[in-house]
């Protein structure tokens, strides 16, 4: 059993319970133990690009420290949490002034910790599947291959960008989700808008613009013959379902669970 630290994130406790539930179930089947870190707090969400703001990033740093203390990589499923935590880790590794200030803040905490300088490896669940478990291993464990289903992988932006920091896949021509879809026996549909933004939080203040973006994505996927879109991001799912066309959008962990035979209700 491989042990990794696990950061679920707030949305996975409310709107995106399936993403979390099946991530855990599938990990068990694949021989990975997701050890949820204790007392985790919100990753800091949308404030990641705010470079001079430290307070909103401290919760991410605390999660990173918790993983460091266990000497394990830190795994997230939510694209947004993954993006925030990876960017924070990158900044604390490379930006001395940020590192010093963040550690100064943390020294005020009740628990005393060693200063942190980016030692933890941050992984998205997809990276866990690709680099630790291996797609070939997943293929072996599939009991219910999704043969014949044409699935559009929707990356969105948070998994891929900024490319240098995320180091997840080629931001212009990624392949990891397509490999995943092949591993569970389905057929990936490659369409141009798979790495375009869904509209993100723009949906709050300019719903029309967000709708245009979501529509472009779902139309592109459908016109290329996809019957289903798959994502790792609760916000993407929200936008695509609310604003996009009728194509069903599911979390990748749901599909994985279906293929591995651990999904409770296959009609959901």
């Amino acid at each position: 059993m491989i042990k990794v630290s696990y950061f679920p994130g707030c949305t996975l406790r409310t709107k995106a319970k399936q993403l979390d539930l099946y991530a855990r179930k599938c990990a068990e089947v694949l021989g990975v133990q997701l050890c949820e870190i204790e007392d985790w707090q919100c990753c800091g969400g949308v404030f990641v690009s705010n470079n001079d703001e430290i307070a909103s990033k401290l919760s991410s740093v605390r999660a990173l420290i918790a993983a460091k203390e266990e000497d394990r990589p830190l795994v997230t499923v939510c694209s947004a949490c993954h993006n925030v935590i990876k960017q924070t880790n990158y900044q604390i590794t490379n930006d001395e002034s940020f590192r010093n200030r963040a550690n100064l803040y943390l020294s005020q905490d009740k628990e005393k910790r060693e200063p942190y300088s980016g030692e933890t490896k941050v992984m998205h669940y997809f990276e866990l599947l690709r680099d630790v478990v291996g797609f070939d291993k997943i293929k072996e464990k599939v009991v219910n291959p999704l043969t014949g289903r044409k699935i559009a992988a929707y990356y969105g932006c948070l998994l891929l960008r900024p490319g240098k920091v995320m180091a997840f896949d080629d931001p212009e021509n990624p392949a990891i989700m397509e490999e995943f879809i092949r591993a569970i026996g389905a057929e990936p549909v490659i369409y141009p808008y798979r790495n375009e933004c869904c509209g993100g939080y723009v949906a709050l203040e300019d719903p029309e613009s967000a709708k245009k973006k979501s529509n472009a994505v779902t139309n592109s996927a459908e016109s290329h013959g996809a019957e289903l879109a798959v994502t790792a991001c609760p916000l993407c799912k929200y936008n695509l379902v609310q604003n996009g066309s009728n194509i069903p959008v599911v979390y990748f962990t749901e599909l994985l669970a279906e293929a591995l035979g651990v999904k409770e209700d296959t009609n959901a």
Partner: protein
Amino acid sequence: MQRIGVFVCHCGTNIAGTVDVKAVAEALKTEPGVVFSTDYQYMCSQAGQDIIKKAIAEYNLTGIVVCSCSPRMHEATFRKTAAAAGLNPYMVEIANIREQCSWVHKEVPIGTEKAIILAKAAVAKVNLNAPLTPGESPVTKRALVIGGGIAGIQTALDIADAGFPVDIVETKPTIGGKMAQLDKTFPTLDCAACILTPKMVDVAQNDKIRVFSYSEVTEVGGFVGNFEVTIKRRARYVKEDICTGCGLCTEKCPQKKVPNEFNLGMDNRSAIYIPFAQAVPKVATIDPNHCMKLKTGKCGVCSKVCTAGAIDYEAKDEFVKEKYGAIVVATGFNPISMEKFDEFAYSQSKDVITSLELERLMNAAGPTGGTLLRPSDHEHPHTIVFVQCVGSRCEACAEKGKEYCSKICCMYTAKHAMLIRDKYPDTEVYVFYIDVRTPGKNFDEFYRRAVEEYGVHYIKGMVGKVSPEGNKLKVQGSDLIYGRQLHIDADLVVLAAAIEPDKSARPLATMLTASMDTNDFFTEAHPKLRPVESPTAGVFLSGTCQGPKDIPETVSQAGAAASKVIGLLCKDKLTGNPCVAHSDEMMCNGCSTCEKVCPYGAISYVDKEFRMPDRTTKVRRVAVVNEAVCQGCGACTVACMSGAMDLKGFMNKQIMAEVDAICK
């Protein structure tokens, strides 16, 4: 004991602004050996040099120290001054108190203190200087031009015109380079082939010029005036001197599915081929990777149809050794690979092409006979989007692009846009740009014509994504002036790919010991004053191997390089550098360490007889330096463990004396 004179230069305020020059001259007066010390406003001026000459005569000086600018600037000047006054020129030392002192310090006390220390070090060295006499070496009156594009062609023609024999080495089966692939040339729109091919014919007909096509340089030895070069003539399986270039073999060859590199893979050629109609030399070449006879032994059609009997399947690579006095590098450029620019869908759609591919699509000898048709369905494109700076000026994408401006793209894109609008007025043409850079004679007028007369839509902004949808290319771009996002349904997208030096340049630079910058462009000896010479003596630069250039600039530089070569070849003898390594054979133990570190191959070993104190004779192996080959780099003196190797003019004891003077 030396009698040393010290001359401190003000260099206007360049030095005097941050160094108290009078204090320096005064402080040096008491140094051991110094008998005269003075300062002057411009030591390099005629009046300044006269001060030096006069002092040499009056004080009977045996050595001088000039405290001035870098020795790269004026060491030669002051050596000549000393020689004119009867002093050995190698008794002159320069203390660099400008670049390494006054220019880098801001406060006078610090600048002055450092200048005094640097001058004292130079005095300490001169005290140990000995007169040196340079040797002479002959000049081989033949030049080598590496690369047969327009740069190499022009250089070779100019050198031959002055009466010196020239060899061109070209890796392709024909000379002509990139210019042969172009359709029209800016800003006058004359056809590239019409102005290039006469020059290619001139090369073929000039009895001073030999063309080694389908060949490459594999080894370079020797030094300025006496290079020894090995040229590999790749087997073309066709006897060059017998083939008439009739082309019958290329028609009859059954293997016709080979991607044609001259048309950038947009059509096919046969396995035996002549790259294009005006090729020089106009002889066929067999591509061994696709020829059935060479691969499987079955076929032999070309040999049967060749009436001249020029086919030779048994041909082998040949190596030619030749001596040259000068070498010109003209290795040229290539567009960078677009494979990594997935946002423009280059590898996903046939209708996303590079500008060089567009040249072939518009050329009468190209795959479409000069009619502009989409590569995918051979339809006329009605909406064309040009994207400029793809991979150029791209700091953020260093792993796939280049930081520099490729310089030629703004002009050729304006040319393409204008030609398309002229020939197909129903076609809408959009050009996305970061900046339009059109300096050059008649260049900006040319670009303005594209906008004002031909109605090309220039949009300031970049294209973010090209997505193939059906038979259209959906182009998303930003219009920065209107602050809006644009969506254009295009039929054809043309990428102005950045240009980079040819891949052969880096190994060649190693062979020539010529320096390159981080982008693999050859470095010039001085960016302003010696732009066509490499820092390595006898190696000259022509064309885009030195940096991005258009044709007019390339031709001027090619001519300039030729004139430098002619200047060198006109000399009967070259004066060498007397600051060469010298081995003390009594101390040398023959360990071979120096031979291994010598980058010029100047060190060899001989067995020599020595009389021993007990009156016996012993044979020992000792190092000998070829003074004509030695460049005086000093690597051997550092490597020598027994302390036998020393560099004249920079002897170990001289360097130590300088260090001592600085640390005192």
